[in-house]
């Protein structure tokens, strides 16, 4: 009630002729009011504000850096050992003898297959003595000690990886072959049991086995007990194998590898790997990407990069376009013609293929990622000015004929004043609208180029960059948190720019309803 009375008092004070009765606003305020009345445009503005805050302030708040890599420990199955059954003759060669060349070995094998007990090769003749159990001692005629022993069994030391002397191996094999239970070597008596274990006293010092079990990891020694239990598991057809040593039980998996006809023993070991594609969690609100970097942080930095590039490109375009369009429109004549032909030529050149070729060339020349971004901005800006120039020229051509311009000329204002204080302010509304729309399409173009791998490169994040992971269908299906947020950010930003541009256009248009 009081307010109303006050207002009434105020309007009654003015006479009916007084201009102050009419509420007028400055053009800028008028445009703002009309813009804010347009709900769609205001929505765009709010989305834009959110995106800016997200990209710039969010990036500063986030505890992680853009390229900070995270690790996790994973249990990875690593090859531990391999077990192969011997199906070929192994030759244990006497160190003190003359050696037994592969040609001789082949001749021996032939002789055994044919069932002979002697053979000749290279001018020497050899005799074969069958020690039983497919163990053969090969004697060269005229030499007392065997020159080699052929067997399917392998004799290994139980205490280490060292090689046993030939004579000891020969004695072990002879004992195994002849089903005896002991032999004497260097004054000591060794007992041999059925499984091929050789014992001195109570300790197992060696063993003969048809299976060769090799450790595939460095610095691992497989004890005899391990090998025995392993062989048992294999014969039982187990897939898992547990071995207890010093009170600790380790689990291994047994796999048969057909191409090499051997069993691979794998052990799960803790390894530190990149924390790639981890699901959204409390530490990583949107999970991590392929390289183990936090997704949310990358989104924020990506937004920053996209917005920077958009603004700088539009700035370059606008400056160039306004200057060229302005000169062309204002002076007319041959200058206008020339500049318009140049604009036509630029329009003719396809921009996307050009950028792709330049991007591929920069790839080949391994340009530094930061410098690439600068080149990208320069190229995009340079390819975009014709559009703006054409529009400005059209505007200036139509503005030049209007009466207010004739009035400025008639009042004798200088050219500079005419252009900057009268012509340009009338160009600005349309220019702002075009710049806003340009921003949207530049961000899209940059995202497309980054998606193709030709724009912003790793380690810098860009929204298009992030989505390019989606080329792998597995990522597409299972890791939605990688690409869908980035795509939505992109969509929302460009949408917001377009909505704001549209709203500005409606607000500036004098013909729309007030």
């Amino acid at each position, binding site marked *: 009630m009081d307010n109303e009375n006050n207002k009434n008092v105020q309007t009654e004070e003015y006479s009916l002729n007084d201009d102050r009765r009419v509420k007028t606003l400055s053009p800028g305020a008028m445009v703002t009011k009309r813009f804010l009345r347009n709900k*769609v445009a205001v929505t765009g503005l709010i989305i834009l504000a959110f995106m800016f805050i997200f990209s710039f302030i969010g990036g500063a708040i986030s505890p992680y850096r853009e390229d900070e890599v995270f690790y996790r420990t994973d249990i990875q199955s690593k090859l531990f050992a391999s077990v192969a059954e011997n199906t070929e003759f192994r030759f244990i060669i006497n160190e003190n003898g003359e050696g037994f060349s592969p040609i001789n070995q082949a001749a021996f094998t032939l002789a055994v297959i044919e069932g002979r007990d002697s053979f000749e090769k290279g001018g020497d003749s050899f005799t074969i003595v069958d020690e039983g159990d497919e163990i053969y001692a090969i004697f060269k005629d005229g030499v007392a000690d065997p020159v080699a022993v052929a067997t399917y069994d392998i004799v290994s030391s139980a205490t280490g990886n060292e090689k046993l002397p030939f004579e000891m191996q020969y004695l072990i094999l002879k004992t195994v072959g002849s089903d005896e239970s002991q032999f004497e070597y260097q004054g000591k008596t060794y007992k041999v049991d059925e499984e091929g274990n050789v014992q001195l006293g109570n300790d197992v010092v060696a063993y003969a086995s048809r299976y060769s079990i090799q450790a595939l990891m460095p610095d691992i020694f497989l004890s005899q007990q391990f090998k025995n239990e392993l062989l048992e598991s294999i014969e039982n057809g187990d897939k898992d194998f547990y071995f207890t040593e010093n009170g600790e039980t380790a689990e291994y998996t047994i796999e048969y590898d057909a191409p090499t006809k051997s069993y691979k023993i794998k052990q799960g070991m803790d390894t530190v790997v990149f924390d790639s594609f981890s699901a959204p969690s409390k530490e990583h609100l949107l999970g991590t990407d392929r390289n183990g970097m936090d997704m949310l942080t990358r989104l924020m930095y990506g937004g920053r990069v996209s917005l920077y590039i958009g603004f700088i490109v539009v700035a370059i375009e606008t400056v160039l376009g306004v200057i060229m369009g302005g000169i062309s429109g204002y002076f007319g004549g041959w200058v206008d013609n020339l500049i318009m*032909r140049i604009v*036509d*030529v630029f*329009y*003719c*050149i*396809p921009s*996307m*293929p*050009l950028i*792709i*070729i330049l991007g*591929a*060339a920069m790839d*080949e*020349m391994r340009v530094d990622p930061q410098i690439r971004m600068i080149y990208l901005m320069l190229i995009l800006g340079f390819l975009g000015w014709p559009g703006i120039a054409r529009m400005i020229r059209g505007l200036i051509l139509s503005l030049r004929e209007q009466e207010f311009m004739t009035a400025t000329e008639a009042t004798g204002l200088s050219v500079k004043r005419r252009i900057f204080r009268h012509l340009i302010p009338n160009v600005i509304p349309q220019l702002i609208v075009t710049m806003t729309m340009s921003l*949207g399409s530049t961000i*899209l173009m940059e*995202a*497309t180029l980054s*998606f*193709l791998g030709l724009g912003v490169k790793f380690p810098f994040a860009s929204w*298009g960059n992030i*989505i390019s992971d*989606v080329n792998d*269908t597995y990522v*597409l*299906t299972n890791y*939605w948190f990688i*690409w*869908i947020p980035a*795509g939505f950010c*992109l*969509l929302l930003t*460009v*949408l917001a*720019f*377009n*909505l704001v541009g*549209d709203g500005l256009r409606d607000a500036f248009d004098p*013909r729309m309803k007030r």
Partner: protein
Amino acid sequence: MRKFIIKRILLSILILVLSAFIIYALLRMLPTSYLETIAMNKSMQPGSKTYTEWMEQLSSTYGMDKGIIGGFFSWAANAVRGDFGDSWLWTVPVVEKFNSCIWLSFIMGVISFFFELIIAIPLGIIAATKQYSRTDYAITIIAIAGISLPTFFFASLLKLVFCVKLKWFDLGGLIGRNYDHLDSFHQFLDKAHHLVLPIIVLVVLSIGGLMRYTRTNMLEVLNSDYIRTARAKGLSEKNVIYNHAFRNTLIPIVTIVGGSLPGLFSGALITETLFSISGIGFVSYQSMKAGDIPFSMFYMVFLAVLTLAGNLIADILYAVVDPRVRIS
């Protein structure tokens, strides 16, 4: 009228020559190390020509030994006769490779163009006639969303929903696994089935622009004096809109549509790449990434020709459809 057309054609040829020259100069200015690396890689592949032979081919087609201007003329002399050289990546003459993939892109372009027209123009007109209503807002937002969608994101979303989750379509490619076993009618259906998603992507992304353009023009026409006269005369609203307003709106639309006809040949690079369809867009993208200079040169000049043809058609149509332009 005829003079106008001839003048425009001559101007277009001049612009084409200038653009071709600029494209040629740019490709020549690619660092020689880049070209040499490509030629080196090519020559190291089994059974290919030697490095010197590759560089010789490049020199002879593009006049690399002469200066830029001389080289341009030697390339142009060949180009006018239709000899664009052999493609480095595809190892067949450029024109032959081009012929094999252009028709696919063209068909995709035509189909999506047709759908684009029948969806965008009516919707634009409805949005204009019902300005500021909910329909208008909805249509405007759909249009702007269509312009703002990144192609690759939309295509990937469609792939996720329709190919992976619903399993209605294959993830990509033009033909299915059983293509060879089908009879010709089913082969045709198979190809059509594979083209559904790419065409949806193309259509959705292009209706935005046309819808808003139609709406803006329709609004301008509806606010003009002669429409007000028609209403004052008592004509039914339907008559006013479909007989009078619509025809005048068509003027700029026809010119735009006519101008984009040559663009049907240009192929949609991203869509074709994402759906692995070997149209001209995908093939040229692969060539450009691999540094295939003959093919890239040809493709860029081809696109320049298309743009100029589009502009020319648009201008001619404008003169044909709008008598006011003819007189001035």
